[in-house]
C-alpha cells in the first residue's frame, strides 16, 4: 500500500468505528483526539481493525504512534508496504 492508500484505509476504519463522525475535514497533522470523539477503546479498535483486515500486529507500546493521521501513516508505511489493496 502507498501512503495515500494507507490513509484511505485508516479513514475507512475510522468510519467503521465512528459512523456518525464527519471525517472530511480531518487535518493530518493534528491529533485525532482533538478533532473527533475517540476514547481509548476506539484507539484499541484501530489497532484491532488493522489486525483483522491485514494481519498487522502493533505492540501496545506503539499505540501512541496512532495519535494523528500523519504519525499513523508514517508508522504504518514500512509495516504495510507489502499489503495489497
Amino acid at each position: 500500500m502507498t501512503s495515500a492508500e494507507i490513509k484511505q484505509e485508516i479513514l475507512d476504519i475510522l468510519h467503521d468505528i465512528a459512523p456518525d463522525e464527519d471525517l472530511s475535514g480531518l487535518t493530518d497533522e493534528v491529533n485525532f483526539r482533538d478533532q473527533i470523539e475517540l476514547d481509548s477503546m476506539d484507539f484499541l479498535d484501530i489497532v484491532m481493525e488493522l489486525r483483522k483486515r491485514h494481519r498487522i500486529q502493533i505492540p501496545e507500546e506503539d499505540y501512541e504512534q496512532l495519535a494523528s493521521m500523519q504519525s499513523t501513516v508514517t508508522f504504518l508505511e514500512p509495516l504495510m508496504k507489502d499489503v495489497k489493496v
Partner: protein
Amino acid sequence: MYDTIIIGAGMSGLAAGIRLAYFDQRVCILERHTTIGGLNSFYRLRGRDYDVGLHALTNITPKGTKKGPLARLLRQLRMSWDDFQISPQLGSQIAFPGVRLDFNNDMDLLRAEIARVFPGQIDSFENLIEQIVDYDDLDPSHTELSAREQLALLFSEPLLVEMLLCPLMYYGSAREHDMDWGQFSIMFRSIFMEGLGRPHAGVRLILKLLVRKFRTLGGELKLRSGVERIAVENGRVVGVVLEGGQQLEARRVLSSAGWCETMRLCDDGQTVSIPPKDRLELNRQAGRLSFCETIASLDLEPKKLGHTSAITFFNDSPNFDWQQSSTPCDLRSGVICSPNNFDYQLPLSDVTIRITVLASHAYWQSLDEPTYKKEKLRWYDRITESAVRFVSDYRLRVIDTDMFTPKTIVRFTGHDNGAIYGTPEKQLDGITHLENLFICGTDQGFVGIIGSITSGISMANMHCLRD
C-alpha cells in the same frame, strides 16, 4: 480449543462475545439456563409479554450524541442508535412523605424542583453537578469515598440527601447503608444528567439484537450448558467441564457468574487471598441485597388513572434505609415502574405496573412450595398496598398478576443470595488469582443494562483481545 469461553449469556457475556467474535476469535458462550439474559430476561404468561430486570435504560442521550456510555457502547458493538429503538421517559419522581421531586431527561427540571422544594440548597446542588461532571470514572482513587459523607459536606438539608440517594441506590448500590462516591457519581450522571428510556419492545429487543449479532459474527452459544467446574492446571485455566461431563478447552475464560460463584467453580482448591493486588480477596462476601417484584397487568393505561410517571421511587419516612431486609419484604420503600409511561410513537399493546422492594433472600429460600405460593400472594397484596400510598390506586383495574422473589433471581442468575447488584467489593480490573481467568458483569463493577454491556466490552478489550 476456543480462544475464549464466556460463562453466562447475560448482557455482559453477550457483549463480550460480540467483541471477540467480531475480531475473529473462536468464542463460545455457555449458559446454564434454557434462555438467554440472566437477570434481564422476558417471558410470556397467559398470553402476555413480561420483562424481568429492565425497568428503563439509563444513560439515554439523544441520537447523534458522541460522548457518554451509550454512544461508546454503540460504537464498540458496531450498532446504531436506531437499532435500540429507545423512547425517552415521560418523567419520573422521587416521593417522600409530603414532598416530591420530579425529574426527566432534561436536567433543568430537577434543578427547578430543587430550587422549589429546597431553595437554600440550589447552589450546593450546582456544586455537586460540577464535581460530578469532572469525576473521572476511570480514576479509582475516589471510588471508595462515602457518598453520604461527601453529600453531607455539600448539603445542610438531610432530607435532600436521602431523596438523591434513594433512586441511585435502588438502581445500583451493592453496598448497604451507603454508596461508593464513584458509584454515586456514575449513577447520578446515568439517571439525572443523561436520562431514562425504554425500547418499545422492552428487554427482548436488546437481547435479540445482541444474540443475533453474536451469531452472525460466528460466535457459538450453548444453552442448558451449566459449567460444573473450571479446570485449572499449574495456575492456568485449561478449560471447563460442563454439568453433563463434557470438557471444553479454552485459552482463557471470562466469567459473568459472579466473583464468589466463579471462585467456587475453580478446581484448584485455592481459598486464600493472594497478591498481585492487595484487594484481590478470594473470600469476599457475596452481596446481600435482593428484591421482590410484583407485576400487575391492567385493563387501561395508567395515564387514565392520573399516573404519568415512568419510574416512581418512594420512601415513607424522612430517612432512607438501604439494607438487607429483616422482614420478608421491606415495605418502607420501593420503585414503581410503569413501562407504558414512555414517549412511544405507538402505545404498548399490554399495560403493566411493576413494583420492586427489598426482600430477604433467607426467608423466601426457606419456604416449602405450598407456603412459598401462599406467601407470594400475601406479599403481593402488601407490596401493592404500600405502593399505592404514592401513586394512583390501580388495584381495581388489575386483570392479571405475577411476582418474583429472591428465589426466582437465584434460579435465573445463579447469583448467591439473589444479590442483583452482586458483591459490594468490586473487582474493577476484572482479574483473578489465575492469569487467564477474568470476570465481567455485576461483580466487575458496572450495573444496569448499559453498565453490564459496558463491563463485557471493557473486560473483553482489556484481557481477551490483546495477544
